[in-house]
């Protein structure tokens, strides 16, 4: 019998915990793995039953995602042999590539609107949270409640007024309009989350900086902000995930110019039968920016999500 400790789990408990965590991770990741795998399947494999776990990988989905194609006559095909590997893939179906699809454009829109609104939400949220945390503001509690109340209904409930407002302000189908809208939705979350973090930073730091010869804004910038990094990063990730994945407003308010990727991806289905591999490829690529952003900032996030749980 080895020494007993109340703080160290036994080896058996560690193993059991490890297996449980691995199992849970696997279950949550299956849909994701399924999407990634489907992106590399041929259309036939993608819908075969029973589902194929082992299959011949192909880039067909990705080629279809990024191109528009058209059917051609045998004579045309014989006269113009394929020059690139991706043209060859398309030729299997007697098609030729006539140009790029709009996926790249939509993806860029998502990047501009997603990151733009995240930046704006976090920037405004940080300033507002600092003010709420530090200054005597008349009706502070009511204002905070009012800020929170904007989240007490699904944002889409106000879709019609917003649609009308956007139309008369000329914001429909513009990047600026979508950035403003997502910022408005995210701002309440940002203010509340960040206020919690700001409240945890002792005032003595700023007071020391004020006496050390700095202005209020410099004290905020040089002393408070570096300590709020964790909170700012966690907030930024939450804001980005919302803005990135938002579907309903994007469908309603964008069409040609500022359409983001979420409303675009389903439209791939409609072209010449159900092209599941292309949809899956679009979804896979769509995951990457948020994934990279989160992985890069992961060490801040872990502390951020559990903030307040453990007092230092």
């Amino acid at each position, binding site marked *: 019998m080895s020494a007993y400790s109340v703080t160290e789990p036994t080896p058996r408990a560690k193993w059991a915990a490890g297996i449980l965590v691995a199992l849970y991770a696997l279950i949550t990741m299956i849909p994701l793995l399924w999407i990634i795998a489907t992106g590399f399947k041929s259309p036939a494999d993608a819908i075969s039953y029973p589902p194929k776990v082992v299959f011949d990988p192909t880039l067909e989905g990705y080629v279809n995602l990024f191109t528009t194609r058209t059917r051609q006559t045998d004579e045309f095909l014989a006269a113009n042999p394929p020059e690139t590997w991706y043209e060859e893939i398309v030729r299997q179906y007697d098609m030729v590539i006539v140009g790029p699809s709009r996926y790249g454009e939509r993806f860029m829109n998502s990047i501009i609107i997603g990151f733009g609104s995240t930046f704006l939400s976090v920037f405004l949220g940080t300033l507002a949270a600092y003010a709420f945390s530090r200054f005597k503001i008349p009706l502070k509690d009511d204002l905070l409640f009012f800020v929170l109340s904007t989240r007490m209904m699904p944002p889409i409930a106000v879709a019609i007024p917003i649609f009308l407002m956007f139309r008369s302000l000329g914001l429909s189908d513009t990047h600026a309009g979508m950035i403003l809208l997502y910022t408005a939705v995210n701002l309440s979350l940002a203010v509340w989350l960040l206020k919690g973090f700001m409240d945890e930073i*002792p005032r*003595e*730091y700023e*007071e*020391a*900086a*004020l*006496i*050390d*010869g*700095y*202005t*209020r804004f*410099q004290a905020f910038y040089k*002393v408070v902000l*570096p*300590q709020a990094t964790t909170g700012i990063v966690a907030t930024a990730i939450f804001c980005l995930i919302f803005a990135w994945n938002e579907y309903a407003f994007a469908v309603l308010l964008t069409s040609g110019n500022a359409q983001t990727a979420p409303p675009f991806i389903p439209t791939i289905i409609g072209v010449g039968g159900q092209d599941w591999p292309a949809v899956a490829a679009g979804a896979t690529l769509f995951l990457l920016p948020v994934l990279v952003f989160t992985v890069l900032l992961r060490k801040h996030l872990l502390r951020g999500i559990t903030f307040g749980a453990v007092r230092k």
Partner: protein
Amino acid sequence: MSEVVLSGVSKAFRKTVAVNDVSLTVPDGAFVVLLGPTGAGKTTTLRLISGLDAPDSGDILIGGRSVLGETPAQRNVAMVFQQYSLYPHMSVRENLAFPLRSPILKTPEAEITRKVGEIAEVLHIAHKLDNKATALSGGEMQRVSIGRALVRDPDIFLMDEPLSSLDAKLRADLRVELKRIQADLGATLLYVTHDQIEAMTMATHVGVLDEGRLVQFGPPREIYENPVSLYVAGRLGLPRINALPADLFPGAPGGAKTIGLRPEHLVQGDGRESRVVRVEHLGDQTRLHLTLDGHDIVTLTDVHSRLAPGDTVAIAPKNPLYFDASGTRIA
């Protein structure tokens, strides 16, 4: 360095009056200690001078100019906080350099390096300069925060119980060090504490605060020997002054309610018989706990005293202090 004058300064937080009509002059080059229990208004007084809080009424002058409209930065004061004062995201060196880099001072880099090195040497933290501020012991942190004030050349240093979180030995060392630095620099210092040894050893002047009022101000010996009230008498002296009914010993003047007897105000071998309850041998002194008519009395006796609990000792007052019913000194 400059003279700092408070005239009729008051500050209330909601209904609590923290500082009540305080007038006080900190002379140029003086080491003024503010004494008082928690809640007496010591810290608030420092915050009002530094500009972190604004007084409700009264005026504050630094070097002859009213600073009421000025920001903390413009007032050119340095302050050492009781705790939490180091910037946790910076190294010790960056912490010490922070005030020198402020837009008001804009010190050249070479000068910063020299001053930071100098102060680190004085405070024995030179080997920790590149540590993160959070990777220090409590004593080291507090020395860094004192150092952050000392790198500057302010009109006045404000210190809020800077030694309270240190262990006894370090506190004694730093006490001597602080006094030496103050004397060397000719610095003006306003220092808050409730440690009477700090007050007695370092101060040129002591101010005693009671519920926001400055009840007495003067050199430490004067405060000790001539307290204006029982409250002031109780702030200084260890063991504390014995406050007993005035009629316990003969000779009380009319109107006296309480007789205040410091340990050295009791002569042994004559007078009223009291019983020894406990004898504490502290090494450098021996404390005698006595009881007389049900009243506890603490006094000092010979270090090698052979008295034991149960013995009787005759005691008589010598140069006692008398206070009336309100606690005001009358003789």
